[in-house]
């Protein structure tokens, strides 16, 4: 144990460096043909934000329809299309690429002391695939949409609906490859591009989390691609793998689909957990409590995450003994998440804590993810799953994990690294307000849905019995508050691009290598490749660095 005093640098004399990755080249083409991981991250950030607001508007329509028990705003068919597109866009075009493709893309090479990702052109290709897939998805939406739900369940998707199943399936298929390329790039980069001295156990936990998520992307996504191709073949030529009248098995599709889509929730949440580790450590000026446990819990989540998929099918007549095994494994995957929560909480112990916006979002994450995780145990226990599955309980559960967890982490990370990405600070007071508004709006929206689910209200219903109305009214009211909470950052972050305070190299006095260089960074990140001689989150090393700097300048 030792003591660390951290003082923030004087910002009045700071200037944005003339030479940086943003000013290196100009013009649209220099962006569209760039191989720079930082520019690609910015391209991703713009595109996923766009899709987030498309998906968010659809969510607004859903909540508006559910304000009253009758399906009076939209026809049931329209409602079905709206929630299907909401799910598809939010899952495949926002949550899966959210943190990895933006923050991960920007920060990982800098964190490990590399000049770029290992495969810059593949990185750009992955963005182009994402955009192509996104345009295809928007095209299907404009030309009539799809009403299979984001799960494409057969035989509904293959034999019974007349909407754009194939084009949407194609969009998801392509988006999947974008995700595979990102994952592959991270794995190669983390293995091969670490700076001298950057051993595995000196990596920031953000990198560990992305490594685990990348493995899931590379191994899981091809199975989704296979499932979609089989579904498309079944729909077009009737190959019969999922058709019981031809000897096929309708449940097989769900096995394949969830073999990807359950690990996919860990693809979505693990990078968010990486963000939380960085933020909690930085704003309590203290190394993460139990680094190894947190690092290995990410790996454990990734490994166990592959063997729990059938818990989505407890009521579907799979064998009782399969249910036993999958229920047990589901309980085991909950443990590493609990470990992380307590390790983060104890990181605060004897720290020196400040409450900037990223920290507020991180606190929000910890509270909401605890609820999301615990309610996951309700569903993992096979007995209670029978009553709670396919109801609003499950909707509330995964929104607590995905929105309360992942989106909070994403916003935390965006605020945290905003000074590094743009060279300017966001306005602190209003963004703290936005964090609080988001938290309140979120709870008001999704907490009533736990009660609705316990009452038995099924998900994906355009109309519902009148005694469920009041809770739905609360939920819709919360959604409007939540909407404000999400619009605010767009406004003030855009404002800050021009009017924000100059950030300087290391406004938070964080220890990561990315904070030791100028903001915004040079295209090549580091003037010379750093040699790493300290552990991650070594605040004493940071102090010594500053003393050295003062000595050399003086």
């Amino acid at each position, binding site marked *: *144990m*030792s*003591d*660390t005093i951290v003082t923030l640098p004087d910002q009045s004399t700071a200037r944005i460096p003339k030479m940086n990755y943003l000013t290196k080249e100009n013009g649209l083409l220099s962006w569209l043909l760039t191989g720079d991981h930082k520019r690609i991250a910015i391209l991703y950030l713009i595109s996923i934000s766009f899709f987030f607001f498309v998906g968010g508007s659809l969510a607004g329509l859903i909540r508006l329809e559910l304000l009253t028990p009758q399906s009076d705003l939209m026809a*049931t*068919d329209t409602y*079905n299309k709206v929630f299907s597109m909401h799910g598809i866009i939010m899952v495949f075009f926002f949550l899966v690429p959210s943190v990895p493709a933006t923050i991960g893309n920007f920060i990982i090479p800098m964190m490990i002391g590399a000049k770029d990702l290992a495969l810059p052109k593949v990185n750009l290709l992955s963005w182009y695939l994402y955009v192509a897939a996104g345009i295809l998805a928007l095209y299907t939406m404009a030309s009539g949409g799809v*009403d299979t739900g984001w799960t494409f*369940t057969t*035989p*509904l998707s293959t*034999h*019974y*609906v007349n909407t754009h199943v194939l084009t949407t399936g194609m969009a998801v298929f392509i988006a999947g490859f974008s995700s595979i390329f990102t994952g592959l790039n991270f794995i190669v980069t983390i293995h091969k591009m670490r700076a001298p001295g950057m051993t595995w156990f000196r990596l920031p936990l953000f990198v560990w989390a992305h490594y685990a998520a990348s493995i899931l992307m590379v191994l899981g996504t091809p199975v989704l691609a296979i499932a979609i191709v089989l579904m498309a073949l079944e729909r077009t030529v009737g190959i019969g793998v999922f058709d019981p009248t031809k000897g096929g098995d*309708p449940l097989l599709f769900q096995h394949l689909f969830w073999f990807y889509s359950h690990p996919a929730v860990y693809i979505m949440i693990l990078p968010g957990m990486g963000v939380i580790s960085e933020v909690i450590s930085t704003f309590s000026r*203290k190394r993460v409590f*139990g680094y190894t446990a947190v690092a290995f819990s990410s790996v454990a989540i990734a490994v166990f995450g592959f063997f729990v998929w059938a818990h989505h099918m*407890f*009521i*579907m*007549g799979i064998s*009782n003994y399969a*249910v036993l095994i999958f*229920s047990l494994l589901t*309980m*085991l995957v909950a443990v590493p998440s*609990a*470990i992380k929560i*307590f390790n983060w*909480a104890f990181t*605060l112990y*004897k*720290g020196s*804590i400040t409450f900037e916006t990223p920290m507020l979002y991180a606190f929000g994450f*910890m509270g909401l993810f*605890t*609820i999301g995780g*615990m*309610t996951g*145990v309700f569903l993992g*226990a*096979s*007995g*209670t799953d*029978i*009553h709670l599955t*396919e*109801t609003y309980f499950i909707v509330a559960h995964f929104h607590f994990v995905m929105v309360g967890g992942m989106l909070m982490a994403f916003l935390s990370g965006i605020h945290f690294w905003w000074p590094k990405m743009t060279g300017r600070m966001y306005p602190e007071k209003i963004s703290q307000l936005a964090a609080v508004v988001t938290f309140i709006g979120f709870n008001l929206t999704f907490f009533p849905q736990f009660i609705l689910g*316990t*009452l*038995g209200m*099924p*998900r*994906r*219903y355009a109309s519902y*019995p009148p005694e469920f*109305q*009041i*809770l739905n009214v609360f939920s819709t009211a919360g959604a409007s508050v939540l909407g404000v909470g999400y619009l605010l950052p767009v406004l003030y972050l855009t404002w800050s691009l021009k009017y924000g305070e100059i950030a300087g190299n290391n406004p938070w006095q964080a220890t990561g290598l990315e904070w030791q260089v100028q903001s915004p960074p040079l295209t090549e990140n580091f003037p010379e490749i750093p040699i790493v001689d300290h552990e991650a989150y070594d605040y*004493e090393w940071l102090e010594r660095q500053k003393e050295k700097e003062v000595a050399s300048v003086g």
Partner: protein
Amino acid sequence: MSHISPIIWQFLVKWMTNFALFPPEASKIAPQMDALYFFMVLVSLVGLTIVILLITSFSILYSKKRHPVAVQIEGSTLLEATWTIIPLGLFLVMFVWGALLYFRIYTPPANAMNIYVVGKQWMWKAEHPGGQHEINALHVPTGRPIQLTIISQDVFHSFSIPAFRVKREAIPGRYTSVWFEATTPGTYHLFCTQYCGTDHSHMIGDVVVLTPEDYKKWLDGSTSGSSLAQNGERLFASLSCAACHNTRPDARGPSLANVYGSRLTLSSGQQITADDAYLREAILNPSQHITQGYAPIMPTYQGQISEEGVIDLVEYIKNLDSDYRVQQTTASTTLLPEGEGNTTKAPVAPGANQRAPQGMVKQ
């Protein structure tokens, strides 16, 4: 109070006094399910309180103002072991408790009364053994275990009765089952909880729980004139099943008397128990289910019999307890609509005679 706007007034009076927070407990399993549910709620609340207490107390104690100097701590194996083992223990308790409940809900007792449920876009059809049919409704008596044998005619559906805390997926081409014992008379929600297309949210109905006496009255008042087994017998005759399954020594198909529930050896050498699912498969996809010693000559009936027709046949075969009954069917290939004595006396609902042919064509 007079200046409160009428809309807010309506909100306060009409809604706040009339909304649900917890579903009624109307089956024997419901209180058991709720016990585990509340145990989990309790554990979650304790866990959440601990997390919130840790965050707030550390935030207050170690805020930068109060504690300007951070003390670097590596970690603590003891503490980390504590918060690994305690959650793991609690999760394992929930796993075992949940699994016990799961096996209870999906293992029907032998004496359960069987009701068939067919799901189709977008309605539920229930068929009682006595031949009573209902759409988007299910009448059941209290105090008696009821087994539902569920199948879907098209896409996945899911049969959910929140007040009973039971739910089971209706799968195309496969029987699934669930059971319950209703305890409190009343009318409860019946939902389809698996998204099934356009009118998914209209695939709802009522579960009406009646006292045994009222249930008997309801049965008598809603009879269609012939039981499922009788419909099945008619189908058996009209599809000429008896041409082969006729119990004669030189028969080309095995006798079906007492076949239900027996152990069979298939031509592949596989040993199976002839349950509902097997009978259904053997009718629709016979070449895969040939009993040892017989030639694979039975044609498939896939596409020729509706799910209701298959249920009638299965119910008929289930009730075949002697060769004599088969021979009776065989003898009357030009069968009269009402084969058995007591049904001819029962009042025949209009349209009852047309029901059997309807069951034969795929809808």
